[in-house]
């Protein structure tokens, strides 16, 4: 599969995301924030970083980048889109995913090897996992606390749209320990932790993150 990774000004983990895509056996395609062009990719990753410095609100400015028009259309059309950390924030700001991410409750940047439970193994990005599976993936952010109003949270739970939840304690005050969510169709996934930093035993805490990228298959479930 051809998987696009968008680079915004201030993106940091774009190179890492492209590496992860390659290690999962796909072709990585670099996409530029300023182009109205997805270069015909089959899936898109919005990587981590501090787009535009994230001084205003994480993802608030990146959301308006030219390429996002295409990403939003493609996502509505069922294309698999994964937002990691800053990418998750951008997806929320773009209203492709519900809720928002605010400052960690401890008000510090935190970089940890975090235990997670994969709760939904039906999305385009989690089919390689089994529901209930525990994984260790790098979590690193200053504004990773997931918030939404109660109704939204209840709906997410009821519809099984919580993709991953923090295990062994809540590292940032996220409501209901939510680490990642998906849209109704299951093609758009936002995740605070960084699976692209857990794809090589040499340079991260194991390879538990690779599954997010190997989950992509020619016909992802939602396009059925």
């Amino acid at each position, binding site marked *: 599969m051809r998987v696009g990774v968008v680079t915004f*000004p201030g993106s*940091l983990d774009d190179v890492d995301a492209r590496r992860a895509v390659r290690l999962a056996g796909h072709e990585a395609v670099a996409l530029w924030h300023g182009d109205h062009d997805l270069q015909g990719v089959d899936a898109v990753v919005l990587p981590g970083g501090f787009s535009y*410095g994230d001084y205003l609100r994480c993802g608030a400015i990146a959301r308006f980048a030219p390429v996002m028009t295409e990403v939003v259309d493609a996502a509505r059309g069922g294309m698999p889109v994964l937002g990691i950390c800053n990418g998750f924030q951008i997806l929320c700001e773009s209203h492709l995913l519900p809720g928002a991410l605010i400052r960690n409750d401890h008000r510090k*940047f935190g970089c940890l090897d975090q235990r997670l439970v994969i709760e939904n193994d039906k999305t385009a990005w989690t089919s390689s996992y089994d529901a209930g599976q525990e994984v260790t993936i790098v979590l690193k952010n200053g504004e990773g606390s997931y918030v939404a109003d109660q109704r939204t949270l209840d709906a997410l739970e009821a519809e099984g749209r919580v993709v991953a939840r923090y295990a062994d304690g809540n590292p940032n005050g996220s409501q209901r320990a939510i680490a990642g969510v998906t849209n109704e169709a299951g093609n758009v996934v936002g995740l605070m932790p960084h699976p692209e930093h857990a794809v090589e035993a040499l340079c*991260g805490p194991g390879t538990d993150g690779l599954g997010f990228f190997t989950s992509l298959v020619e016909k992802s479930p939602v396009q059925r």
Partner: protein
Amino acid sequence: MQLDTVAIAAADPDRDQPWRELGLKEDEYARIREILGRRPTSSELAMYSVMWSEHCSYKSSKVHLKQFGDLPQETPLGKTLAGIGENAGVIDVGQGYAVTFKVESHNHPSYVEPYQGAATGVGGIVRDILAMGARPVAVMDPLRFGPLDAPDTHRVLPGVVAGVGGYGNCLGLPNIGGEVVFDESYLGNPLVNALCVGVLRHEDLHLAKASGVGNQVILYGARTGGDGIGGVSVLASETFSEGGPTKRPSVQVGDPFMEKLLIECTLEVFAAGLVAGIQDLGGAGLSCATSELASAGDGGMHVELDRVPLRDSTLAPEEILMSESQERMMAVVEPDDVEAFLAICAKWEVEAVVIGEVTDGDRLEIDWHGERVVDVPPRTVAHEGPTYHRPFERPAGQDALQADAAERLPRPTSGAELRSTLLRLVASPNLCDRSWVTDQYDRYVQGNTVLAQPSDSGMIRVDEETNLGVAVSTDCNGRFALLDPYAGAQLALLESYRNVSTGGATPLAISDCLNFGSPEDPAVMWQFAEACRGLKDACAELGIPVTGGNVSLYNQTGETAILPTPVVAVLGVIDDVTRRTPTGFQTSGERVFLLGETREELSGSEWAHVVHGHVGGLPPRADVAAEQALSRLLVEGVGFLTSAHDLSDGGLAQALAESCLRNDVGAAVALGGDAFVALFSESAARALVTVRPGDTDRLVALAQEHGVPLTPLGETGGAVLAVEGQFDIPLTELREAWTGTLPAAMG
């Protein structure tokens, strides 16, 4: 407001000028007049005063630093590609790769405004590395604070750590190591040093010089504001006849996003081959960049200062020349490449302006709206500043200090006392777990971090195909340096050398950051001179060069100077990072050995400091040959050493504790001789290693071959650290003691 021009300076030669307020000495001002054959314009005066300052001219230190230049500019792998004098030294690490690294200080600004001071400190060193044509790949942050329980430490430390993280994280540079040290002497004078490592291909090396008549000088990055020009405002207030200058910032605020764009943009213009010369703007801003580029080049330079994009339109030319606004770079570009250069800047939304060009003359000429405000020989500004031979003298009290040995202090006797001493030490501020600090740093970004905190060194993969990598460590024990600056500086170097070696990397070169008190105090100057001599001798014996560094003087509160703190960073290379030796015990059933000789060396130790609040005596022996032998063993042991951890602060006790806690693997050890000395002596040239039972003979043979003393200690396994006949400590209890301290203090 009246402009002071070269013409006016000639016409009105006797106007008196605020050279004293600008920190110039009478003879220095006279020399400037002599160089120019007239009085300087206020802009020239601004340039000379800032470039001839201690910070920029190294006038007190350079007579001592000179000896580093006398060392063979050669690493164990061959000639250095760029040495002292460049923005940062560059060394060959094989496979066509080169690495550049440098450590710098941002001490005083971090005391005034901890977050921004530390942040802009990181920003500055990163631009130094970038200016060599290298992609920055990692940062480190050696930090020193007052006592952990001092109120001001609770202002400074969280701010500094947040600043280092806030800036470095936002640049996408993994933080792979550093130091956190607490000592009374840093209370009014914290040390915030920052190190950056960069990687480049040999052919991409860029030097800071302006050559090629007609080449264009481009200033790009952030706009210029009134940052860091407090000093020059006396000039401005002269210039502004009516009512003095408008307000100038007392501190600088960093913009890491702009710096990130600057990095990507600069690497792209390098890749496109559009750069003839380049220089970062740091201390002394445009004064430094223009004069150094011109001075190092073969021609002169003409600059139209009014083209500089300003953040504050009220700035006078003197101020623009001195402004230390962050996130700016200056490039020298061939005329035909200018368009392409500006296009790449535009792509990254980085403002770029041609402000001048290289001339065939030998002068640096700067105009302000068509009027000449600067006309000087650039070398006299950049490279021919004053040199002081400051008096230095071994302090009267030094003998008494060295006579007051810690070996005489009362010691724990029973196993129970040893146990509580160990627990007390692992929980002490200088030995406890650093996670509260290091968890605020991104150590994973870029995906090439092989080792980071809490490993002995930080290790970065340079090439994904071949797995070539580099390792870096920074260290210094200021108490050792106080007791004997010569040996203390060597011990700093040797500990860092050891920390690189335990991972399996071959040490190649050092960079240093020499933090000392006032050079006007002969005792401090003696400490400085001794430290330099110590470093030079150790480097000569080890066959490694000093590729660069930084001097920070006047670190004192009132009359009392900080502990002399020569922080030393050692960089090593490893051919295959997948074979690196990890820090800490990996699995049960492995044999534990101590490498090196343990002497009764307790003076300056963490034990003496924590238990007795004592500093006195002679530091451990700095045995360069023994250290080199140990290093060779550790490097050759790669592949069958299953773990290695250096012994330093806290001695064997601390090394055992850290090794057990790394992966929750306990150990049972037996100590020959005096158990207290075995556990808490801080003799150098030692490391704790493990091997599989089957590999014991290989280790014995290797130790013999290198003449390194080898002591079997015991075996790994269990959930307890057990010292035979003395005590047992469950790892849960050990971890509680080790991890509790910083969170409890910082909340």
